[in-house]
C-alpha cells in the first residue's frame, strides 16, 4: 500500500453492469476519490466481474459504455484494482477477457486484502 495521510477506502463491485446503475455510480465515486488523492482500492467480485469484460456494446440498449473509463483509472492514480479469480472461474471467464490489466486474487487472498482497508463501501 502506498503511504497516505488519508484513510484507505475499498469499493467493492458485485453487480453486473447496465441492469442496475451500481457499477456506473461506483465508478463515479472512484473517480471523485481518485481526484482527491485518496488511498483507494477497487474490488470486483461475483457478478461485478462482468463490468470488466472487454468489447462491451451497450449502445444497443441506449446506455453509455462506462467500461471505457476503466482505462483512465491509472491517470487518477488508482492502481489497486483486484478481481476475484473464483468469481471469474465460476462464470467461465479468464483475465484475458477483461478490458484492463489488474491483479487477480483468490477469494481468500481478496478477503485478506479487503480487511486492510478502513472503510469498505459496496455497490
Amino acid at each position, binding site marked *: 500500500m502506498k503511504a497516505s495521510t488519508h484513510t484507505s477506502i475499498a469499493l467493492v463491485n458485485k453487480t453486473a453492469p447496465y441492469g442496475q446503475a451500481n457499477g456506473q455510480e461506483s465508478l*463515479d465515486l472512484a473517480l471523485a476519490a481518485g481526484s*482527491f488523492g485518496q488511498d483507494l482500492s477497487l474490488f470486483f467480485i461475483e457478478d461485478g466481474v462482468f463490468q470488466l469484460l472487454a468489447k462491451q456494446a451497450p449502445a444497443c440498449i441506449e446506455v453509455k459504455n462506462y467500461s471505457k473509463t476503466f482505462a483512465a483509472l491509472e491517470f487518477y492514480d488508482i492502481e489497486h484494482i483486484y478481481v476475484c479469480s473464483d468469481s471469474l472461474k465460476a462464470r467461465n471467464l479468464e483475465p484475458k477477457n477483461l478490458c484492463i490489466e489488474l491483479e487477480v486474487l483468490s477469494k481468500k487472498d481478496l478477503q485478506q486484502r479487503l480487511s486492510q482497508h478502513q*472503510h469498505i*463501501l459496496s455497490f
Partner: protein
Amino acid sequence: MASFSLLITKPSFDAQDAYSAYRFAVAALKLQHRLKGIFFYQAGVHNSNAFQTGHSDELNLHQKWLALAKTHNVPLLVCVTAANRRGIINQQDAVELDIEHFNLSAPFTEVGLGDLVELLNASDRVLQF
C-alpha cells in the same frame, strides 16, 4: 466515543435499509457518539424528496430525517448528480433549468462526491445502508 458517518444508498419507502439507518443514527446519538454526517447516494437520494406524502398513519422517513437534523445538527448531504438523475432538484437548479417546482431544500444539502470522500476521512466508522 467514536465518530460515525452513514452512507445511505437505498430509498426511503421501498426497503427497510434507510429506516434502519435512521434507527442506528438515533441509537448512536443517544450513546453520545458523534455523527459527522449522513450522505445520500444512489437511490438513497429519494430520502431527500420533499414530495413524499404517504398516508398520515404511516411512517414518513423524510420527516424523521428533518427532525433528526434539527435536533442534533447532523448534516444531511445529497449527491447532486444522483439526485438530479432521479428527479430531485433544489430551487436554484429548478430556476436554471426552467422547471416549475423543486423538491430538495434545507436541511438537505446538494453536494458533490468529494464531500463523501471528506466525510470518510473525518470518520472512525462509516456504515452503509
